[in-house]
């Protein structure tokens, strides 16, 4: 998603003379040309995330619209109070971008994993969260953020199960994507929802693990706060199946699944597949971590089949 993000934000910087890009010393072998092109509108703030958010707030207070970029946990947790006090409480148009959502950084270790970024940020006033489902979903999110007044967070990631599957449709406001629809609406069905790149688990399952033979709708959501009244297709599916499986590469506590469950009618069966912390944590690739957490296409297919049998 990083390449798609850089391309999209370049469009914004070209169109908006008040937009600028601040990096927390990230971008080696990726942002050099970008830095040259935008000159003074490209700032490397160094390895100093608290100052980086504070100075972005200062720039926004005098009318500029900064994009602030680093590895997801560094640009959210290290400087959380600056995001809350300096940015959110003042409703400033600071666009925070975290690269490496979920287990993207894999073997880099737990310091680099972002499994609670959405949880902590969703509690902040005025904050809007964007978590694209796929590389070709990033530009739409960047375009929406560019038009926003107020704080936002964009979560970039690479799924261990990444596919290139094209969506059937995409809601221009909510960014929700439909990836598959039920073959037989008269039979019991299931609504599989992935948060951001979490949906790739389902997309891989569709492509090569037999999920396409089950009676499921598959959606990817990408925005919080939810705008469920504007998500007609998604809501129709949920009301018809009354049976939801939610997949997210994020801890369950404070995750998007928790919020969605609260927003849905109580009669819905709601199952959550999410990341979990283990005291005996061992490390490996993103795929290794996903397997440890049972966040795999196989596990999803098994759960789908069990839920459909019970329906």
């Amino acid at each position, binding site marked *: 998603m990083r390449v798609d993000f850089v391309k999209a934000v370049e469009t914004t910087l070209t169109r908006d003379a008040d937009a600028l890009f601040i990096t927390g010393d990230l971008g080696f072998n990726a942002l050099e040309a970008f830095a040259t092109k935008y000159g003074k509108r490209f700032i490397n703030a160094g390895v100093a995330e608290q100052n980086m958010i504070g100075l972005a707030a*200062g720039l926004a207070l005098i009318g500029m619209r900064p994009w602030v970029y680093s590895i997801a946990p560094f640009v959210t947790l290290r400087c959380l109070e600056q995001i809350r006090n300096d940015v959110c*409480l003042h*409703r400033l148009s600071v666009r925070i971008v975290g690269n490496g959502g979920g287990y993207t950084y894999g073997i880099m270790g737990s310091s680099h994993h972002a499994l609670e970024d959405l949880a902590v940020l969703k509690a902040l006033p005025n904050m809007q969260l964007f978590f694209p489902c796929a590389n070709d979903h990033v530009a739409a999110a960047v375009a929406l953020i560019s038009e926003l007044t107020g704080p936002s967070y964009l979560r970039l990631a690479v799924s261990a199960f990444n596919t290139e599957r094209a969506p059937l449709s995409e809601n221009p406001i909510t960014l929700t994507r439909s990836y598959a629809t039920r073959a037989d609406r008269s039979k019991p069905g299931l609504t599989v929802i992935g948060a951001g790149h979490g949906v790739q688990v389902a997309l891989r399952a569709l492509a090569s693990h037999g999920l396409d033979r089950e009676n499921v709708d598959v959606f990817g959501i990408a925005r919080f706060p939810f705008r469920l009244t504007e998500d007609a297709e998604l809501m129709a599916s949920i009301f018809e199946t009354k049976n939801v499986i939610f997949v997210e590469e994020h801890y369950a506590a404070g995750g998007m699944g928790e919020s969605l469950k609260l927003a849905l009618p109580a009669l819905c069966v709601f199952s959550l597949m999410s990341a979990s912390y283990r005291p005996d944590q061992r490390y490996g690739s993103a795929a290794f971590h996903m397997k440890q957490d049972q966040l795999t296409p196989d596990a999803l297919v098994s759960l789908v089949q069990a839920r459909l049998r019970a329906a």
Partner: protein
Amino acid sequence: MSEPLNALAVARAALAIRRQFLRMHFEARSGHIGSGLSAIDILASLYGAWLRPGDQFILSKGHSASALYATLHHFGKLSDAELSAYYQDDAFLPAHPAPLGLSAIPVATGSLGHGLPIAAGMAHGYLHLRATDSRVACLLSDGECNEGSTWEAALFAGHHRLENLTVLIDANGIQAFGRTEDVLRLEPFAKKWDAFGFDVTECDGHDFAALASALSAPASQRPRCIIARTVKGKGVSFMENTIDWHYWPMSEAQYRRAISELDQCERELSA
């Protein structure tokens, strides 16, 4: 502000602000008196003689909000009605500056170490992106220099040669639970700021001529740091240099005694 005031006029303004400040604290029965009194002469110097239209001031030591409110009121930037709501329910004037409440206060502070990064962002924007001659001043407490984010911002300001940024430190030597030199030593304080790329001036933070001279030193392509050596509780003898008056509100007897000391100070100024 119209014409910059001379040192005597700033001194008179500071005295009037102290009077107002003590009245506010007495009526509200609120604390943080000592650190407000140490900052008032600096605030009066900034608003009376230095800040121009288009300049920005950030109070990073947010616990001196009441001193800022009294200063803004004195210089006509806060109405009687607004000021009367200090420390009251349903108002924009809490003990630390609130967000989005008053046009004269651009940013909320209260958690230490936030003001300088914001001020550095503004100064960087004015100097390198907007090409305006707006200046930014930021008032820190010395205790606030325990915060890592303060030094992150200092590093940034020095590196980017933010010559339009003036950092003032209300160095009263006392923080929330001890003397700064006992809690976390700051000295050699001036050398630290110099090493971070600042032009440093140390002065008596209650000497208006010295403050004016430090504030008006010629630009040098480096940000400026003024270490204003101050006295916590300045102007009220029984509050001076004690940690207690970081916290306590005044009794009526204490308030009357404090005001009588300001009366004496006023007689001396007029003489």
